[in-house]
């Protein structure tokens, strides 16, 4: 049985932990709102860009001289996984899920005889993956100390990726990130970046509306594709940051609740011990008085 003093100390320390976690929950909630608003605001551009890409890609996909970014360079030997995680932890399984998925993916691809490379965005993913997959990581970038992500960041990353593609460092690039469904659920999602997703039936329907194109399909696609890549990375980064704050909020909420439970349990033990002490003292006094 621990002494009353140690119990008291423990209760106090759990109380301060609870204060911290509930404050963190509040901060995460505020940041989540901002991140969600930012993600919301970026949607019109992504939507229009998607429409234009759909219309152009459907027309151009059959062309043998189509840009490599659209149809790939004809090989699929080397895969690049672009893994997006948060820069900070204390968010439940948020970052762990991405690392786990990447590890599984690496195993699956290597079982098929492919070479795998990894590019990490976000500090946590890099920290976790470099422990066992250091040799595969060809680049990393994080946003530590940045308040919000702006499009210029995404564009810089897209330029880096395109540069690597042109140097034939990889043939196929896949984006791995947490898609934000709701505050409670974020799911690990894969999106093909290079080659850009093959036009679906939906895109074909849009293409049938026949756009006139200036200057011409090919030239415009050359300009549109890097842009589209940056837009997709930007969207994923925003989903990631919204998902991170949601996940952190949930994690901190349950931590606060757990701390509450713990305080309850500890206070119960503390009160029992206190009462036992008093009873013991009373018995001692009474039996002392009787002996006289």
């Amino acid at each position, binding site marked *: 049985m621990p002494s009353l003093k140690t119990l008291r100390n423990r209760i106090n320390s759990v109380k301060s932990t609870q204060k911290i976690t509930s404050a963190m929950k509040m901060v995460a909630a505020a940041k989540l709102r901002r991140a969600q608003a930012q993600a919301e605001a970026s949607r019109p*551009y*992504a939507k*229009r860009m998607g429409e234009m890409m759909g219309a*152009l890609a459907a027309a151009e996909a059959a062309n043998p001289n189509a840009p490599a970014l659209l149809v790939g360079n004809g090989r699929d030997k080397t895969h690049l996984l672009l893994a997006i995680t948060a820069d900070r932890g204390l968010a439940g399984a948020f970052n762990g899920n991405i690392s786990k998925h990447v590890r599984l993916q690496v195993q699956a691809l290597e079982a098929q005889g492919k070479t795998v490379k990894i590019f990490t965005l976000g500090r946590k993913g890099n920290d976790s993956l470099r422990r066992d997959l250091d040799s595969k990581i060809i680049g990393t970038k994080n946003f530590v100390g940045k308040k919000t992500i702006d*499009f210029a960041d995404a564009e810089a990353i897209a330029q880096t990726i395109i540069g690597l593609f042109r140097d034939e460092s990889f043939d196929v690039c896949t984006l791995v990130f947490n898609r934000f469904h709701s505050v409670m659920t974020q799911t690990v999602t894969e999106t093909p970046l290079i080659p850009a997703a093959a036009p679906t039936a939906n895109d074909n329907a849009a293409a049938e509306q026949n756009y*006139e194109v*200036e200057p011409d399909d090919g030239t*415009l696609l050359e300009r549109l594709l890097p*842009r589209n890549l940056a837009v997709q990375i930007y969207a994923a980064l925003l989903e990631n940051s919204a998902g991170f704050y949601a996940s952190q909020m949930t994690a901190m909420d349950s931590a606060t609740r757990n701390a509450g439970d713990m305080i309850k349990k500890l206070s119960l033990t503390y009160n029992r011990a206190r009462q036992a002490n008093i009873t013991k003292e009373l018995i001692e006094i009474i039996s002392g008085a009787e002996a006289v």
Partner: protein
Amino acid sequence: MPLVLEIISPEKLLLSREVDMVVVPGTEGDIGVLPGHSKLITGLRGGLVDIYENNTITDRFFVPGGFAEVTESYCAVLADGIIRQSDLDPAKAAEGVTAAKAAYDATDMNNAEAYRLATDRLISAQAMVDSISPQRADKA
């Protein structure tokens, strides 16, 4: 039938309103868009987007480049940012041209991709300077 003009940057919707006509700076020349325009996708060079209402220009915005999608009922301009023409700063614009020129001179001419980017940047910077006092007739 009105024409809805949307100017959108990757970060947010910058402007969305109904206009009578809009003139956008396409890569192959300025394009006037009236309601009912045929479907069109075009690249944009740096230049002015002119908004016409009642046959006069009611607003002019500088765009540094981008894309535009036109249909019968709307015109969507995808640009990195817009600056109201009256807010353009000649000093900043001149600075931009100097910087772009330096970057252009430093570019490896054999690298088609980099060369194209540098050229685009120079053209866009020059367009900003030109947009401060446009020479073409303002009033229809």
